[in-house]
């Protein structure tokens, strides 16, 4: 279970997150939505200790973020940040292989190789494994980064806008895969999405963030309403219900 209690965050004297509390039980796909600048990425990076926690407390299972050993957290939780600038010049296979580092510390074993092969296959990257990251397309690169996070083999997976640059087939495939991982392998996945229809279609729970506060939290059908679009996103898109699922008509 991820527990966030009373987390506030300031940057340059500006409040980015204000007293955010939430608890995410094990298992399930949780979509984090909200307008640009709402604080979604900040929240994820605080949970994954990419930024130092200023106020409040975050725990993942029995580990307290900021106090626990870094390797222990890396074996329990993986994050794919929004803009993953990988500075080293790596091949796709090598990048995905780095995801296993928390487990083998540099000396991969048979289990690590198997996990990397599985991740490459799942994300259709087997044919690209020997290509350099700067020699593939934006969507392929995005898939490689998600594959790296998956290869880390953690119970908790935080993905910040993984659908960026993905075509519709790859997007649906990724979301279906995440749902499968949540249902059949008991993984807990938090995913930042901008396309609300993907949240409605694949998430078990939707949390809306605006101005650094949680403004809505619940199953997709309850959260995704015309009121949310107007109040939170300040837009007048229509919502129609198809097969019992809300669909935003853009």
């Amino acid at each position, binding site marked *: 279970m991820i527990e966030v209690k009373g987390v506030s965050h300031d940057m340059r004297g500006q409040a980015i997150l204000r007293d955010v509390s939430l608890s995410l039980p094990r298992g399930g796909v949780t979509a984090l939505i909200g307008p640009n600048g709402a604080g979604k990425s900040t929240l994820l990076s605080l949970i994954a200790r*990419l930024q130092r926690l200023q106020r409040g407390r975050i725990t993942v299972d029995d580990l307290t973020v900021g106090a626990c050993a870094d390797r222990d957290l*890396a074996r329990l939780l993986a*994050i794919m940040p929004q803009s993953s600038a990988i500075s080293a010049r790596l091949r796709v296979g090598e990048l995905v292989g780095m995801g296993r*580092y928390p487990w083998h510390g*540099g000396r991969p074993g048979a289990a690590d190789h198997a996990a990397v092969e599985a991740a490459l296959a799942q994300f259709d990257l087997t044919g690209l494994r020997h290509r350099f990251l700067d020699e593939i397309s934006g969507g392929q690169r995005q898939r490689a980064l998600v594959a790296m996070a998956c290869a880390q083999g953690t119970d908790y997976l935080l993905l910040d806008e993984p659908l960026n640059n993905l075509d519709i087939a790859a997007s649906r495939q990724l979301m279906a895969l995440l749902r499968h991982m949540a249902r059949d392998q008991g993984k807990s996945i938090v995913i930042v999405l901008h396309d609300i229809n993907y949240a409605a279609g694949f998430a078990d729970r939707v949390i809306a963030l605006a101005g650094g506060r949680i403004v809505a939290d619940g199953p997709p059908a309850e959260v995704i309403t015309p009121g949310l679009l107007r109040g939170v996103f300040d837009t007048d898109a229509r919502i129609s219900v198809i097969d019992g699922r809300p669909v935003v008509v853009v």
Partner: protein
Amino acid sequence: MTDRFVLLAGLLILSILGFMTLGAEGSWSFLLPFRGAKLAALMLVGCCLATATVLFQTITGNRILTPSVMGFDALYVLVLTALVFGLGAAGYAALPGPLLFSLNMGVMTGAGLLLFALLMRGGRGDMVRLVLTGIVLGLLIRALTTFLQRMIDPSEFQTIQSASFARFTFVDRRLLAATALAALPALALAWRMRFRLDVLALGTEAATGLGEPPRRGQRQALVLICVLVAAATALAGPVSTGFAGPSSFFGLVVVSLAHLVTPSPRHAVLLPSAALIACIVLIGGQTVMERLLHLATPLPVVIELLGGLLFLFLLLRKAHG
């Protein structure tokens, strides 16, 4: 990859053989220890500078800046100048060798850490700012050195000049032992860091996510860099043309060559490859220039020229994306 290493090892053995045997006149009982000590010094200096450059480029996330381009070995001349300035040439000459060595190591390690702290504030990832900060800091050190030298008596000035050239012609045994004592543990620690360096090279966020927060690793690498460069410089003097001259591009040349000959993101490959190439360039270069071509031009001048061109090339290529 293995065949590349076999090739490098072969080249190194050839260089060593050439260095030890070519132009050998006189008794072997004299030549062997004499050239042996020189050989050991060259290898030690090569390994130190190559390793320091690899560490530095990894933790700053760039392939252009090196400790020497930043004026780290100019720092050595500054320490020297400050000592002569403070104590006078006579006082300086009276300092016992080991004390001078430890003083140099201590001051350079301390000042180096300070310098790097300044540099890292400039922001990792922001390449242009990083390189500019580094070059400006280097210029500052050299300017300060020149300023002090202007205020020194010309005859005392001579002392600095002779002490600050790369001294591969004569090697002090005790100094060699002291350097090895400082450098070998640092080299071993750098090798132990090789997997962590692979992770650090990915960038701050990715490294943190994999359970390797960069701050700790960067600090450890910085200390190693300072010890390695200080040791190499204290043993051989700056490998640059010396004296407040242009900065040294030796590390840059060697590590760029290593990337070329053994392209791999793994430090388990890069570290030994760079060290091997450094030894080949120093020993082979010295042998070819001195014993085969009988050129009077010192090796550092040639390295400096080629390195300067390479530096310019890398900088321009980076500027064009």
